[in-house]
């Protein structure tokens, strides 16, 4: 089997994902093209050699519809020969794009790929694309659909996490993100967004709140209590899990991932294509995996995905130096740490989406780059990157520095 290598990874800063947020001024295709240009330019890529551009994007409707990967590649001035495909594995789309690219390289069907993702949550809000799952009466009934926030609150209830546990995690995420920015740990990946004049639109992650404290978070109202009670969702998940009496609604804006805009790109290829372009590989993709699990609780997939990827790589938990799990909700990370018995010091060391936001389709590619940067900075070797995914899925990737 051919090895797949990561040659480079870039990301835009993340802008507050609503009107008034800095990146709301630019379109998602502009954001995606911006990341594609950056990875091309700083690696001196001949884009005629790029077999395909795979981008993750969740809300593929409106200006994000109709294969934004191909359109962004064209807009970025890529050679016409570089194809483009857009994929959707909900929150792991960006990582899944990287995995699919790596898989094609490993299979010997492609040589050089660009993977990544884009999401302008300010211009194409969550749920814009609709979908059958929640709305089709037969499907919703067969799967006991509830929205993610309800699942997250249910997880916290079921495994005894208090509001204070979650808030403490969130405060630490903010602290770590601030430290990482303060120490320029994201420097290698960040590509500031500039406008058509070259003026800077955004050069930092916009949603961070380094001054957050347990006390300040305690003021925030639970985000999902109202929909849980008045729209029947609490009852639905409690029917699915009859051993649980009631739900404590403990997640809020401060211990859940931020709604943001952003894009990312990762250059993946085999050894020969890198050599031909004079590029030095930064890491090897050891293994990847996606899994499905119970969709109503929805967010417990990462540990299963991680275990599956470890099995595929012939590795064990102890072989991983650094863990990166998307902070969709604080309970997701705390549960992952419980199940795999991972020390908080080894996971999300630069903070995560609670501080910096979660641009759905792009996040997976962004945190892959974050993990790679951190391995290089710390001199560690292996990292496992994973995300919880809607409808009970999970996706994970193991990389190893070379």
């Amino acid at each position: 089997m051919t090895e797949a290598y990561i040659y480079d990874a870039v990301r835009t800063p993340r802008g507050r994902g609503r009107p008034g947020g800095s990146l709301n001024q630019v379109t998602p295709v502009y954001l995606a093209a911006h990341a594609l240009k950056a990875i091309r330019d700083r690696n001196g890529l001949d884009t005629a050699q790029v077999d395909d551009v795979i981008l993750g994007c969740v809300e593929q409707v409106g200006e994000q519809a109709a294969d934004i990967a191909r359109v962004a590649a064209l807009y970025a001035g890529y050679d016409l020969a570089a194809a483009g495909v857009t994929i959707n594995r909900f929150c792991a789309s960006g990582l899944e794009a990287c995995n699919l690219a790596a898989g094609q390289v490993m299979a010997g069907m492609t040589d050089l790929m660009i993977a990544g993702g884009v999401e302008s949550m300010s211009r194409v809000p969550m749920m814009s694309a609709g979908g059958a799952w929640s709305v089709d009466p037969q499907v919703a009934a067969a799967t006991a659909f509830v929205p993610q926030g309800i699942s997250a609150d249910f997880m916290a209830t079921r495994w005894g996490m208090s509001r204070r546990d979650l808030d403490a995690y969130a405060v630490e995420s903010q602290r770590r993100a601030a430290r990482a920015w303060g120490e320029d740990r994201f420097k290698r990946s960040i590509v500031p967004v500039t406008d058509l004049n070259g003026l800077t639109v955004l050069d930092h992650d916009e949603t961070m709140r380094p001054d957050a404290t347990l006390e300040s978070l305690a003021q925030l109202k639970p985000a999902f209590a109202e929909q849980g009670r008045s729209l029947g969702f609490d009852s639905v998940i409690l029917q699915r899990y009859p051993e649980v009496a009631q739900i404590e609604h403990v997640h809020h804006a401060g211990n859940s991932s931020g709604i943001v805009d952003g894009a990312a790109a990762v250059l993946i290829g085999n050894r020969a294509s890198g050599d031909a372009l004079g590029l030095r590989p930064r890491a090897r993709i050891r293994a990847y995996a996606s899994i499905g699990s119970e969709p109503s609780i929805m967010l417990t997939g990462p540990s299963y995905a991680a275990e599956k990827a470890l099995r595929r790589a012939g590795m064990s938990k102890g072989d991983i130096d650094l863990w990166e799990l998307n902070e969709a909700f604080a309970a997701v990370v705390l549960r992952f740490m419980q199940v795999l018995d991972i020390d908080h010091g080894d996971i999300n060391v630069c903070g995560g989406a609670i501080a910096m936001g979660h641009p759905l389709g792009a996040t997976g590619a962004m945190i892959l780059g974050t993990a790679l940067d951190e391995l290089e900075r710390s001199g560690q070797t292996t990292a496992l990157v994973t995300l919880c995914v809607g409808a009970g899925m999970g996706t994970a990737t193991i990389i190893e520095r070379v």
Partner: protein
Amino acid sequence: MINYSVDGDGIAVVEWDQPGRPQNVMNGPSLEAFFAAMDGALADDAVRGILVTSAKRDFVAGGDLQWLQRIGSAAEVFEWASGYHAATRRYERGPKPVACALPGSALGGGLELALTCHYRVAADNPGARFGLPEATLGLLPGGGGTQRLARLIGYAAAVPLLTEGQRVRAAAALGQGILDAVVPAGSERDAARTWLLSEAAGSARQPWDRKGGSIPGGGVNTPGGFQFFTAANALLRARTFDNYPAPRHILSCVWEGLGTDIDTGLLIEARYFAACVTSAEAKNMIRTQFFGLQQAGKLATRPQGVPTSQFSRIGVLGAGMMGAGIAMATANAGIEVVLLDSSVEAADRGKAYAVAQWAKWCEQGRLQPAAAQARAALIHPTTDFAELAGCELVVEAVFEDRAIKADVTRRAEAVLGADAVFASNTSTLPITGLAEASGRPTGFIGLHFFSPAEKMPLVEIIMGGQTAAATLARAMDFVKAIGKTPIVVNDARGFYTSRVFSTYVREGMALLQEGVDPVLIDKAGLLAGMPVGPLALADEVSIELMYKIVAQTRQDLGAAYVESAADQVAAHMAGTLGRLGRKNGKGFYDYPEGGRKHIWPGLAGLFPPGPQQPAAAELVERLIMVQCAETVRCLEEGVLRAAIDADIGALLGWGFPAFRGGPLGWLHTLGIARAVADLERLAQAHGDRFAVPGLLHDMAARGESFYAI
């Protein structure tokens, strides 16, 4: 069946008039005649417009369920529905305007038929109701109702009407856009005729057949539609525990159907309709809630040859919660009530209970203040037994104490006429024993009301050993007179309802003792379709009461009494710990003031949950099958006289899930052979309370079933 005439203006009048029935109903023959008339009018050049109406008080009352059940397979139902749609579409899309004049109610298929017409005018008839109640019988409106109503008034307004089967008055139907006009009764045909001759009628088209026509509130594939159906799906499941396919299928018809044109939508509806008609849930609900209640309401089992009794004055002994409720129900029917208690204050309190409720009804607009006053005037609180003179029937609702009951029986009988019925509202004491205090036990009977008596629709009539058939007939007449449904059972400990209902509660307590998590136990009750979990129910009826009944039974039976797990749990909770139930705020649950009730934390110490908890489905099976087995025993022992009484009593008496049809309906659904096998397995694992009754064995051996459908 369908009268047809054409008048001088070229208006064809198509008039429903089914012979030998008080109501027009839709079935194969009546629809065939109707469609033939409509096709004839379309083909007749002399006809310029068509007026559809009824010669009876109401328009069409709906589908003929007996006929519908005979259609048979899903393929046949689908084929029938497709044919119906083709026939209605011929005139709906035809060149001639069709108006519908509704003299009274149009329900179910009747309203659906009205919706196929271009113009609907109804008489301003206070008794008329409009709605699509199919979902309440496990069906969906299969005559285009889901498609036309939702397209006419929008999905948001249509979904509650469709899924909950609400019936509305003419004014509300007009306000919602279901009717085009409401006119003084008797002028509806003229109004329809006027419209047919108007210019507007010339270009009449249904909204869904108009080019560029839109649905009020927008389509389903919109952000609004997405939010609406996402919430509607969850709210439906929260309400039904996904036990009722019909309302889910209705949501699907609207959601899928409104995404396409009307003709495709009708096909989608026909597929879901076929699924509903052939579902066990619909068969169960139709058998018990429609035919069963219909027969019970007609007093089909009333002894013949006894003239129907009229009631002008009845007595109620004991003005507690139950007595007051019975008095209220009686006054609601316009019958005078002597409400007797041992003190004036107690008797007055009983009346005040009813008066307070009526005041609430007035606030809600359910009752006029004058009517409330008239009803209040019917209740005469007293302490004087002499006032019972002239009562045709007396209901005793005093404490469950044989001595007190015997005393009031004697004192009442002293002033009652020879034909008067004396009824005891006991829920636990055998009637034959109580009748020993009576000087004329042939006139003594049990009338077991359920609490709150003014609201609960069931009365369990208990025949004592010597009760005369004429007494039963009069008691049934009384139950009917106050608008309630009777079932008739023979005398035995716990009669029927209390006996079987208690098995549900006791099974929950047995599960607790086995180490099943109490949260899971009560959730399993809800998942089974019961209105309340068994432990929560034990708290409501009071653990103490159960404890006392057990003590009494043990005393009565002596060595023959077999102690059960539930007895031990009740003894420990009520006897040892003083956790009596909701009434003292301490039972299986705690009831914090101002907070939500929750399982008493100490319960885990008392009955430690085992490490391996069973699947909810196992508990659901036990909680249902324990009731089914006991019901068969009641039938076998002759406590029950008819299977349908068991099922009606279970649904109305303690909220046994309607989709299962009743305890016997559920065994019928399983099939008797499988029911025997299931009970054998359960008996093996959990004990003799699941043992297969001989009757069921015999039925299985003979290939018999409780019901035909």
